[in-house]
């Protein structure tokens, strides 16, 4: 139990994710300004560590005079929302498919493996671009497209862990006790593979956040004027030589959040690993 929490990285990750979750949940209460309000008289104000800063705009303003800190906090909300929703959608799909394949074996498992291989042969970014290009960009479309594309890691992990648990005697005992397949899956198998799935979920959240940023950067993710971090980077790239902070700030935010999620994921993996060793 202790190894995971003794690791400083786990704590760093937990704190970063905690702050991000807090910002995401309470964004409307935290922001100093309306993130959508433009003020062309205050374009590209510099952040607090540079000379000539406006104290009411801690991180300065963007090219349309919108408060950068407010947009960053709202961007966090959007990133977290996309990360979590995509992970829930892909988790439901992947875990269902993986557990069924691992538990039933035989033909069902062949179909599951085929589906996973098919999915792996699809380039995520290209498919997502094509779907968003055809259906238009909105957050809902983006979340469901990514959710439908990112389930394979859940499926692979759920399948292999289910196969391990399936062969344990307590599953045989449940079978002999006359439990239904559903009862065995829900009561005996799922709780015992949940710790592995939580680790996958953290990785998927980070991946979904990065993909959203990439798609938004390409102009096919979250539609403006929503303040997505990827979109902020895209909009800032024209100004990066004269006002570098407009690209540096969302870049660092993205990097720190993904790093934090990954650190937390690693910590959780160690934590659960330590528990199953004991």
């Amino acid at each position, binding site marked *: 139990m202790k190894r995971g929490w003794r690791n400083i990285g786990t704590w760093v990750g937990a704190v970063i994710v905690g702050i991000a979750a807090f910002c995401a949940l309470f964004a409307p209460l935290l922001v100093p300004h309306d993130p959508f309000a433009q003020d062309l008289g205050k374009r590209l104000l510099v952040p607090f560590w540079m000379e000539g800063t406006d104290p009411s705009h801690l991180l300065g303003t963007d090219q349309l005079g919108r408060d950068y800190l407010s947009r960053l906090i709202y961007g966090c909300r959007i990133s977290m929302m996309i990360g979590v929703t995509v992970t829930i959608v892909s988790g439901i799909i992947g875990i269902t498919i993986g557990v069924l394949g691992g538990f039933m074996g035989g033909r069902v498992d062949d179909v599951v493996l085929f589906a996973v291989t098919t999915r792996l042969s699809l380039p995520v970014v290209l498919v997502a671009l094509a779907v968003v290009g055809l259906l238009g960009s909105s957050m809902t479309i983006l979340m469901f497209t990514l959710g439908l594309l990112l389930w394979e890691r859940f499926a692979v992990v759920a399948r292999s862990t289910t196969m391990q648990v399936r062969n*344990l*005697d*307590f599953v*045989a*005992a*449940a*079978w*002999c*006790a*006359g*439990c*239904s397949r559903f*009862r065995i899956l829900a*009561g*005996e198998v799922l*709780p*015992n593979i949940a710790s592995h799935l939580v680790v996958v979920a953290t990785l998927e959240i980070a991946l979904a956040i990065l993909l959203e940023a990439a798609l938004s950067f390409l102009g096919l993710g979250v539609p403006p004027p929503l303040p997505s971090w990827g979109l902020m980077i895209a909009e800032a790239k024209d100004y990066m030589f004269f006002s570098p902070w407009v690209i540096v700030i969302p870049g660092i935010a993205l990097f720190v959040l993904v790093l934090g999620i990954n650190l937390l994921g690693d910590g959780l993996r160690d934590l659960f690993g330590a528990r199953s060793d004991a």
Partner: protein
Amino acid sequence: MTAIEVRNARKTFKAGKRTVVAVDDVSFSVREGGVLGIVGESGCGKSTLARLILGLLPADSGEIAIDGRRLVDLDRKARARLIQPVFQDPFASLNPLARVRDIVAMPLRAQASFSKSEVAKTVEEMLTRVGLSREMGGRLPAELSGGQRQRVAIARALVLRPRIVVCDEPTSALDVSVQAQILNLLSELRRDLGLTYLFISHNLAVVEHVASEVAVMYLGRLVEREPTEMLFARPEHPYTKALLASVLTPEPGLGVPDVGLGDTLPDPANIPPGCRFHPRCPIAEPRCATTTPAVKPRPEGGVECLLA
């Protein structure tokens, strides 16, 4: 009345190109209230046989009947009310995330014909019966000792009041000091509840203690079957003799007894022709390599050896 009837059961496994014959044309029956001990070295197919009888694996051919009804005709709920397992390793046979109370209640809940209060009452009675206190019901398996865990597994097996219990090495994962307690508990429960046991073990002393009849298994076949006292007093098959001779003596300095079977373990994917025991048999004759022995009946059992 026979509790378990197995006729010509056969089970093979495919491992790549090799076919492993785990249970090869095995027939036997256990009368109601009896205890049949099955002994044999690891890999001889005794656990596979247990799994066939429990319905955890389908037999390739042959027929298995419990309580006069064919296993394949019973649905799993009905089967659960007749026959239950106790597995070897109580660390693997209990869901690590379930409380003891819920583990024992599981077979009752699966039947879906008991009310909540009935389930709670039956579970409590069963826990007391196997010698666990009330507070144990709220514990997780990790908080129990090996012996206590095996008691939980026994409680789970008996909570539906089955007629037959298949014990697959129920004591071999336990400390020696606890083994006797569990064996006594099993004997006590059999007497009180009128159970029939199929008792699988590699430990001859354990089998001698609990079984009324013993069957010796070698490479997927039952090579000798006899009431316990007769088998231990006058073993006929050379393999049975070797097994009896291999029991370790508590005398220090004597080392491991040499039973004259050689160092090579038999390969179930490559069963020798003729008598399958002949390559290791200390008294084998040339004809043993060519003639497959038939079962020679004895007054209350049988032996499968050309020379017996």
